[in-house]
C-alpha cells in the first residue's frame, strides 16, 4: 500500500498540474476570445485558469485520498492478433 500511496501522490500531482495548466490555458483562450476579455490580460486569465485548474486538481487529489478504495482503471487495448 505504500506504493499505492506513492502512486497516488504521483497521480495527484500530475493530474493537478495537467488540469491546472489545461484549464488555465483553455480558460485563457476562451476568455481571450470572449467578452470576458475585458477582465484582464491573458496572464491573468491564465493564472485564473490555472488556479482554477489547480484547485480542481487539488480537490480531485483530496477526493482521491479520501476515498482510498476507489480503484483507477486502465484501459488496455487488446491486441487483435494475440488471441
Amino acid at each position, binding site marked *: *500500500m505504500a506504493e499505492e*500511496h506513492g502512486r497516488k501522490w504521483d497521480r495527484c500531482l500530475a493530474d493537478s498540474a495537467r488540469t491546472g495548466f489545461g484549464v488555465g490555458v483553455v480558460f485563457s483562450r476562451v476568455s481571450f476570445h470572449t467578452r470576458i476579455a475585458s477582465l484582464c490580460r491573458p496572464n491573468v486569465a491564465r493564472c485564473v485558469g490555472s488556479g482554477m485548474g489547480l484547485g480542481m486538481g487539488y480537490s480531485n487529489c*483530496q477526493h482521491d485520498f479520501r476515498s482510498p478504495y476507489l480503484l483507477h482503471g486502465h484501459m488496455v487495448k487488446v491486441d487483435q492478433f494475440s488471441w
Partner: protein
Amino acid sequence: MDVKRICFTSLSLQKCLCGNGAAQPMQSCRRYTSAGDSGSVAGKIVAASLLTVGGGVGGTILYAKWDPKFRAKPVKVEPLQISSVSEASKDSKQPQQMKEKKVAKEEKPPVQQEAPPLPQTIEAEECKECEHEAHAHVVKERPEEVVSARLAAQDRAEHDLLSSLSAKLDDTLGSSAKLTLQAIGAQEAALSAIANHTSKLKEAMDAEGPSDKTSAQWRSLEDALNERSRAADEAGAALLKAKEELEKLRKVINAAKDSKIDAARPQILAAEENLHSMVVDLDRAVGKVQTAQMEAKIVSQYSELVNEAKAQFQKELDSITPEIQANWKGLTGKLSPDDLNSLIAHAHRRIDQLNRELAEQRVREQIHIEAALDQQRLENQKTLDKAVGTAISHSREQMRLEQEKKIEDVREVMEAEMRTQLRRQAAAHTDHLRDVLKVQEQELRAEAQEVLSSKLMEQETNYRRVTQDQLDAFTLDMNAAYARLKGIEEAIDSHVVAEEEARKAHQLWLSVEALTYSLKTAVADSPTEPLETAAKAVRESCADNEFAVALASALPEESLSRGIYSEASLRARFYQIRGLVRRVAMINETRNSLYQYFLSYLQSVLLFEPEQLAPPTKLKPEDLDTFKLLSYATYSIERGDLELAAKFINQLTGEPRRVAQDWLKEARLTLETRQVVNLLSAYANAVGLGTTQAP
C-alpha cells in the same frame, strides 16, 4: 386181512351168541350150526378155538393199533400195557395155537399169584411217582428209564396174565357159547319136533280119510313121536352140557375177577353178560320147550280121548254092524238104507247116551274143574315159583351185571377224571413254576440291569470327566497358544504398524523438513518459491493423519501459490513502511485533506522519537500512538519478534494502517506459514519420537 376176517367172523359169532340179532339170523345161525352138527365135532371144536384165539389176538392188535400214541407217554400204565400187549401178542403168535389153552391154563395159577401183588405194586409205584413229581424240587426223581423199565416189566407181566385170562375167557366163552347154541338148537329142534308131532297128531285126529292114509298118517305120527322123543333127549343132554359149560365159564369168570386186573374187567363183564344172556336164552328155550311139551301133552291127552271115543264108537258100531268095515270113509258109498237107518238109530242112541254123559259130565264138571283147577293152581304155583325164581335170579344177575357195568363205567370215568386232575395238577404246577421262574427272571434281570446301568453310568461319567479334562486342558493349551499367536501377530502387526507409522512419520518429517527448507529459499526481496509442491508432498506423506492434513491444508493460499517473504525482507520493508507511516501518522478518517497530509509530513519530519522502545507488558491506551507503536514494532522486529511487531502494527489506525496493510498482510502470511510449518515439524518430530522407540 385174515386177522380182520377172523375178527369179523368171531364178532358175528359173538353177536349170534349174545342174541343181539333178530330171530331170523339166530335161527339161521342155529340152523347152520344144527346143519353142520352132523360133521366132525372135533373139527368144529378146533375151528371154533382157532376163531376165538384169533379173535382175541386180533382184538388186542386192533386195540394196539388204535391207540399208538399211548406208547409215547412214559408215566401211564395203560399205554405200556398196550405196547407190552403188542409185544405179548407178537410173542403169543409164535407159540402154537393148539397148546395155548393149556399154556394159558398153566400160566393162570402162577400169574394169578403175581397179579394181586402186581397191581398193588403198580398202584404203589404210581403213588410214589406222584409223590416224586410233587416234591421234584426237593427229592431227586427216579430216572425215567428205570421207572419205565419197571413199569414195562410190570405191565408186560400183567398183560401176559391178561392175555392168558382173556384167552381162557374167550375159550370157555366160545365153548360154552357153542354148547349153549347146541343146546338151544337142540331145544328148538325138540320144540319143532314137538310142534310137528302135535300138528301131526291134530291132523291125524281131525282127518277122516281112507285107512291107508290114516295109517300113513299114524306112521308119520309115530315117526314124529320118535323124533320128538329123541329131540327131547338130545335137548336134555345138550342142556346139561351147556349148563355144565356155563358153570365152568362162571367159575372162570370168578377166577378172573379174583385176579383183579382192571383191564380184564370189561372182558370179564362182557363174558358175564354173554353168560347171562346164554343162560337166559337157554332158559327161554327150555321154557318154550316145556310149554310146547305141555301143549303136546294136552293135545296128546285130547288125542287119546278122541282115540278112545273113536275106538269106543268103533266098537259100538262094530257091535251093531259087524260087517261094516272099520273105515269110516267107505261107509258112505256101501251102506244100504237099513244099515243107514240102524246107523242113524245107533247114532241117535249114541247121541242120547252122550247127552246123558254130558249131563253127568256137567255135574261132575264142577268137581273136575275144581280138582283140575287145584291141580293147575299147584302146578301154576310150582311153575310160578320156578319162573319167579329164575326171573329173580335172572334179574338179579342182570342188575348185578348192570351194576358191575356201571361200576366199571364209573371207575373208568373216575380214572379218566383222576388222570385229568393229575394232568391239571401237573399243568398247574408247571404253570406255577413257570410263573415263579418268570418272576425270578424278571427280578434278576432288573437287578442285573440296574447294576449294569449304574456301572455304565459310572464309567460314562468317568469317561466324560476324563474327556472333559482332556478337552479343557487342550482348550486351555489351544487358547494359550492362540492367545500367544494372536499376541505375536498383534505384536508383529503393531510393529508393522509402528514401522509404518515411523516410516510415515519419517516421511512426514522429511516433507516438513523440505517445507522448512523451502522457506529458506527466500532471496532478499523476492518471495520464496511457491510452497505448493512442498505442501503437496506433506499432504501426501500424511494422508491418513487428520491433524497433519488439517495443518497442511491450513497453509494460506498465498504462500502456496506465491510463496512468502522471508523475515529479512520483511524487516527491510518494514523500515520503508515505517517511514511512510510516519509521514501519514496524522491522517485518519476525519482528517484526510491534503493539508493534513502536509501537516502529517511536517510532523514526521519534526518529531523525534526513539527508534526502538521496549514494549510494555501491558498496553495502555496512550501507548496506541502511532509513533510509539512504530517504535515498539521496530524494537520487536529488531529482536526478531515479527509477531509482536505485527501485533503492534495491527494497532495502527486510519491511514497509517492502510499504508501498512500490505506489509501487515505479508507479515501475517509469513507468520501463519511459519506457524504451520513449525507445528508440522513439531508434530513430525513428536510422531517420529513416538515411533522410534528406544531399543
